[in-house]
């Protein structure tokens, strides 16, 4: 599994390199934009759930489940085509991805899987009650912080 992931990453990097030639590389820039859009989708739904957890917005099971399902789908997006090697901070404009994403690919994968697990668990919790949602929120939030701590650089 890991081998395949590694290979496909390499293939993508090659494919991306094939587009190269000019200074700004549209393939690499596109990947950075796309994964930040994925993160924005993740943040939006986390915000819907967080607003209920904090009590800013009244708890509503149907809304909470819908938000959790979208969150889980966004978290499960295939990483191989979004996190392309050569798109770290400094290499491509707008990127805040740390080079460790590729030098420590297994560690990054672990953090990504932790968010997938936390957001799947959120689907059930969100439909149960507000206390369950609050408890599940701690794991979702923890998984964001754990990955951003190790793999995301500060503002450009």
């Amino acid at each position: 599994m890991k081998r395949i992931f590694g290979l496909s990453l390499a293939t993508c990097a090659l494919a991306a390199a094939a587009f190269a030639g000019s200074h700004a590389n549209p393939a690499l820039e596109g990947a950075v934009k796309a994964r930040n859009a994925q993160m924005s989708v993740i943040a939006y739904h986390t915000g819907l759930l967080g607003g209920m957890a904090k009590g800013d917005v009244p708890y509503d099971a149907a809304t909470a489940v819908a938000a959790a399902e979208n969150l889980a789908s966004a978290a499960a997006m295939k990483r191989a085509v979004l996190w392309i090697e050569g798109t770290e901070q400094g290499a491509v404009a707008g990127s805040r991805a740390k080079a460790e994403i590729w030098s420590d690919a297994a560690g990054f994968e672990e953090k990504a899987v932790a968010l997938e697990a936390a957001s799947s668990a959120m689907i059930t919790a969100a439909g149960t009650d507000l206390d369950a949602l609050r408890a599940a929120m701690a794991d979702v939030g923890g998984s964001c912080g754990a990955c951003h701590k190790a793999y995301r650089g500060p503002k450009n």
Partner: protein
Amino acid sequence: MRIWHGLLIALGLGVAGGLYITAPAPLDAGFASDHTADTEAGALVFAAAGCASCHTAPDGASEGPQVLAGGHAFASDFGTFYAPNISPDPASGIGAWDLPTFARAVTKGVSPDGAHYYPAFPYASYQNMTDADVADLFAYMQTLPASAQPNQPHDVGFPFNIRRGLGLWKVAFMPDGYVTPAPDDPVLARGRYLAEGLAHCAECHTPRNAVGALLTDQWMAGAPNPSGKGRVPNITPAALDWSESDLIEYFTSGFTPDYDSAGGEMVEVIENLSQLPEADRAALAAYVAALPPIPSP
């Protein structure tokens, strides 16, 4: 280039006058002896001051009691510093130290044998610690596990490896106490104590001059990231328009108002702040919101 200039002048003066100006005096043996140390209060001082963020091994377990074995590396313009072992081990750690020796190290930046520590150890902030907090902190640290891990020498070249020169650096560049004026409001005063004393926010959020001294006229206005790309953000109201409740939420869960989640070294800071009573996070928020607005340099 400017770095060499400044440092060489500092060193020259250090040799000439520094022996006199910078010879550190020991603290009174009766330091805080009228205070009954409280390990629970000490645990909160320890969290607010972020001692574990630097003194635990970078890949250490995040669960269970903290082993202060050191080993964490800090990149700077002058070389790489390694945090030493400060666990209660009597040989490799600081288990043989008494309270006045510890207090002198943490609040004055002076070792048991009278040498100056590098300011990578944020004693410039810890100088503001109350005696009671130092005593509680020391008592709490005795309850943590000992480690026999030996210290790793710093990787710092000449002339920065001459500790004597640091005495003059301290006299010339170390802020004398607090940087912002004393507020009348007790909440703001508590926030100032936490921010400028224990939690050393400025060590990351304030830019430095060529010899590594904090530029206090750009207090919290953001700085280049010492360990890589990007910048540590400006947190004065010139750049950050968060409400106090936004700030409290960020210090508790790491979420920004638009549900981005904190990254980098700030995650560790938030792990520490989230252990404090809510009133302390509110005090910090009040302090940050009241900072003089300074545009990013």
